[in-house]
């Protein structure tokens, strides 16, 4: 059986979901036998490849580059998973959403040249940090801040076995 082409992406989030993913510990060895990690913050590849089977996307969509990457991911991936609360709800990055974008940036960077205010070397900050499904179609939702390694494993195991993982009970929980 050919290996599943797996990817993971880190948008506006704290990387806690990826840390939790690494907490799979010895199960990572089992995963490596079934899946090839073709793109990830922990893999040295710069371009998002074509024909990805499953992608775990951590974080909300906070700037124009992330929005562009997410659209590219959607076009090149069969199953897109919103990975963790930021991807599912906006969560902590969305704390800024009731505030004006310009005010947020000026409060942080003061007067003068503000990175992220206009499109430039630093991508422009979007007016609000949004959950993935408000930008592209999302196939599966894996909530949690972060989702525990056990929850991630139950979900990934189901995906790898070709089932539609149904998170229920304590596994389907925000925060």
């Amino acid at each position, binding site marked *: 059986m050919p290996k599943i082409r797996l990817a993971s992406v880190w948008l506006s989030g704290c990387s806690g979901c990826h840390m939790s993913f690494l907490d799979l510990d010895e199960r990572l060895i089992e995963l490596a036998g079934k899946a090839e990690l073709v793109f990830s913050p922990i893999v040295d590849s710069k371009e998002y490849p074509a024909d990805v089977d499953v992608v775990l996307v951590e974080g909300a969509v906070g700037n124009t580059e992330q929005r562009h990457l997410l659209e590219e991911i959607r076009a090149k991936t069969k199953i897109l998973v919103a990975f963790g609360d930021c991807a599912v709800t906006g969560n902590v990055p969305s704390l800024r*959403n*009731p505030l004006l974008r310009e005010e947020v940036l000026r409060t942080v960077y003061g007067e003068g040249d503000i990175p992220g205010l206009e499109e430039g070397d630093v991508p422009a900050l979007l007016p609000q940090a949004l*959950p993935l499904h408000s930008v592209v179609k999302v196939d599966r939702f894996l909530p949690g801040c972060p989702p525990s390694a056990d929850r991630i494993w139950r979900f990934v195991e189901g995906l790898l076995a070709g089932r539609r993982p149904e998170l229920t009970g304590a596994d389907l929980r925000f925060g």
Partner: protein
Amino acid sequence: MINLRIDDTPVQAEPNSTILTAARAAGIRIPTLCHLDALRPVGACRLCLVEVRNWNGRLVPACATPVQEGLDVVANSDRLASLRRTILELLFAERNHICAFCVSNGHCELQDLATELGMDHVTFPYRFPALAVDASHAKFGIDHNRCVLCGRCVRACAEVEGAFTWGFAGRGVHTLVDADLGEPWGESETCTGCGKCVQACPTGALFEKGKATAEQVKRPALLADVTQRRPRA
């Protein structure tokens, strides 16, 4: 006794009791949020909607609908599950319910309902309203970002404490719970500082100061307990 059917189970109930009471006595679970034992039912959150077959499938709130002889009630079905999930999603979309950043994370009835009703995401666009936190009270705080307008605090204050400090101001999504017609809570002349509103609150909207998230466990059953213990004339 009144005879009715809930989920095809014959149930007997006291006259003047509600469908919710009858269902609970029969061990049939109906999700609730604005309901709290000892407080008058208001049917505000609509999560306890049930279907009455012999009223042409009409939807009624179980908490506020009295039992009647011969009622044929559906308390759990795919249709009701879908409706309840939609109602829950609307509650989440209305304000900034950020579980990971909330004092009630892990002890929240809204968070628990999402788990129970299988809500894995919110399909409606979030409103992200700009709402204030009033921390002027010496012992407690109110965070409007987490409020679901269930009115349990308003009823606890009026019906159990008798202080009538809390009330509703505004309309629709702009409604806010406020103290003494909009005074900062800490300056309220009617508030006795009893904290019943905080214990009644299902979310992190009302919280105790000086308590970490793990310690912020509410005791909503306290309202029924003090009502029960109260001397009767």
